[in-house]
């Protein structure tokens, strides 16, 4: 449990020496309790107090990092049960399986299918981040071979569009310059220490740090040895919470600290129930043997079933979800689900404030402005696209608030708009001097005309009316 300010205060020197920058030790303790100050700032704190405070401050859930050097994936280190309490930190990693029974063209096309599962949604690139090679053959050689090939070829393609971007992405031929420049992490799914060792030997130089899955009660020591030698994190797999806690302790004793937990049995309902219990035990009771990220496997079932199951497990509380399907229509909802619950609820989602060209606008094309709240911008953008009138959208920086919110908070006024116009150098983009403004802020037209010397045209209140407006009023 986190210590209260007063408990922290008792561990401090109580000298009010002011060297931490605070006037009193009490003020410093309150800052520490709110995680706004660091203990290192206190020069006189005793070693004993330091240990006590560090133990209290240590994250209840461990952070585990795996993947390639250029695209490392971080999971775990979550601090809350519910997103609205603070935020969720490390987005669920979505992985897709590749069986080591595949070879030749089948294998190539499967890797290609996984590579293509990259999307762009509201301006953010999302996609599958790992390949899970499964040791279905049961023998080490094919497993090592497929791992090696996956390590070599796993390179995601540039994002395909979600939402309104789909069309544009399809129109433009593959452009190598937009490549993500990252590659997928590997998860080695085998319970044979021999197969794991053989595969790790093959991919030592290409795959960075793969995640090894999994150690069970039977093979724990040997698996832990392989994981330790190769410095990779290890999944602990067991059938119950109690068995998992025992197993993670055993693995830790064998020298592997980066552990990911996997509950291997139970219906979806039981899984959700148990995953929630594990999260409560690790975060609220600081039960260290369960203080690790988790991985869930969703294998089998139709793409729709996998989608439903994966989304449930993303919400409660899988750090990694491994699925079998490569259907984009099933993968995109999972990624959207991750994106939705892992955005920071304390900060509005924003787009970069600049001038966006929709279609291929020229010097006579309409110019309008909106705010940099993502939802606002993308709503306007898709409506302008729908109008098929090439236009410029000037995005004014309103700290991620919508038009009316920004206006009432005085973040959207003639001055901020004029500044954005100057920054975006709109005078050189269009020959005319007409600016379309959102209908809801018609009241600012007078001041805006004075501030900019541009003619203000009051646009529709709802952006859905933009196509009509651009075709009828603008013309």
């Amino acid at each position: 449990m986190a210590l209260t300010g007063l408990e922290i205060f008792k561990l401090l020197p109580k000298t009010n020496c002011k060297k931490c920058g605070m006037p009193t030790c009490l003020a410093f303790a309150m800052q520490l309790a709110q995680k706004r100050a660091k203990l290192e700032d206190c020069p006189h704190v005793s070693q004993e107090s330091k240990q006590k405070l560090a133990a209290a401050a240590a994250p209840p859930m461990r952070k585990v990092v795996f993947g390639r050097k250029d695209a490392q994936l971080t999971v775990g280190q979550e601090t809350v049960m519910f997103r609205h309490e603070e935020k969720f930190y490390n987005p669920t990693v979505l992985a897709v399986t590749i069986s080591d029974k595949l070879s030749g063209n089948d294998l190539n096309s499967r890797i290609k299918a996984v590579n293509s599962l990259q999307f762009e949604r509201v301006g953010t690139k999302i996609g599958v981040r790992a390949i899970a090679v499964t040791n279905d053959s049961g023998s080490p050689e094919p497993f090592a071979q497929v791992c090696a090939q996956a390590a070599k070829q796993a390179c995601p393609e540039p994002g395909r569009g979600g939402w309104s971007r789909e069309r544009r992405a399809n129109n433009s031929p593959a452009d190598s310059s937009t490549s993500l420049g990252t590659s997928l992490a590997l998860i080695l799914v085998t319970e044979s220490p021999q197969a794991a060792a053989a595969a790790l030997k093959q991919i030592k130089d290409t795959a960075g740090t793969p995640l090894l899955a999994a150690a069970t009660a039977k093979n724990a020591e040997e698996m832990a040895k392989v994981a330790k030698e190769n410095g990779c994190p290890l999944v602990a797999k067991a059938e119950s919470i109690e068995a998992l806690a025992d197993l993670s302790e055993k693995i830790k004793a064998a020298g592997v600290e980066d552990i990911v937990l996997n509950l291997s049995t139970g219906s979806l309902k039981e899984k959700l129930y148990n995953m929630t219990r594990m999260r409560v035990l690790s975060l609220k009771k600081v039960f260290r043997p369960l203080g690790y990220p988790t991985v869930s496997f969703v294998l089998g079932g139709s793409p729709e079933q996998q989608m439903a199951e994966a989304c449930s497990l993303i919400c409660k509380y899988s750090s990694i979800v491994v699925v079998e399907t490569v259907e984009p229509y099933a993968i995109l909802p999972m990624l959207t689900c991750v994106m939705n619950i892992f955005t920071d609820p304390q900060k509005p989602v924003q787009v970069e404030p600049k001038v966006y060209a929709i279609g291929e606008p020229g010097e006579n094309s309409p110019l309008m402005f909106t705010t940099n709240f993502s939802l606002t911008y993308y709503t306007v953008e898709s409506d302008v696209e729908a109008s098929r009138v090439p236009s410029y959208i000037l995005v004014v920086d309103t700290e991620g608030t919508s038009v009316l919110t920004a206006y009432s908070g005085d973040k959207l006024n003639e001055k901020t708009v004029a500044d954005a116009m100057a920054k975006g150098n709109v005078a050189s983009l269009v020959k005319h001097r007409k600016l379309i403004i959102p209908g809801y802020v018609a009241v600012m037209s007078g001041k805006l005309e004075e501030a900019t010397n541009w003619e203000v045209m009051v646009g529709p209140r709802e952006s859905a009316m933009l196509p009509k407006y651009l075709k009828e009023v603008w013309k």
Partner: protein
Amino acid sequence: MCGAYSWLDCRAAYEITPSGPNQPIAKGSCIEPKIGQWDKINAFVQQVSRGGVQRMSQYSMITDPMTSCGCFECIAAVLPSTGGIMIANREFAEMTPCGMKFSTLAGTVGGGQQTPGFIGHSKHYINSRKFIAAEGGIRRIVWMPTMLKEEIKDNFIKRAQELGLGGEEFLAKIADETTAATEEQVLEFITRAGHPATSMEPMF
């Protein structure tokens, strides 16, 4: 108790919206007479805070103190080395002896957090017999801004007499911004003045 909202306000709000945030709570039986805890109040607090707050004391600012939203008139905070507490009112914008201004203190105690050693309360409540009764009530007060002293003076003197502290004398033993700006100065002042807090048991 915060000064922004009274018992009658709560009752009226409950009558207007019976399912709203203001609810009558049956106290149940008293389990901690000194710090003021009742079983049904604790159960209620636990349930509505979804386990965030487990217990709540009516008479203590050290053990499971009450929480506030943020509109309190005053904040009481411990001044550890003095063995007493300081009270800052909202209008007092200067630095206080505890090293935090009212605004920083408000960030510490507000928002429904339980912060032992700190409570938000009204001016009127200082003169209540129940004000931090577990810790010794107004005997603990070692610092208040002059404007607050002035405002609550009449009733404060009566209450101090009731406790056998002497009326105006006791008020004069309490430091203010003109006599002490830091914790060290408060300690010096109250030691010289012979303030009762100097000879009381430590608060925590």
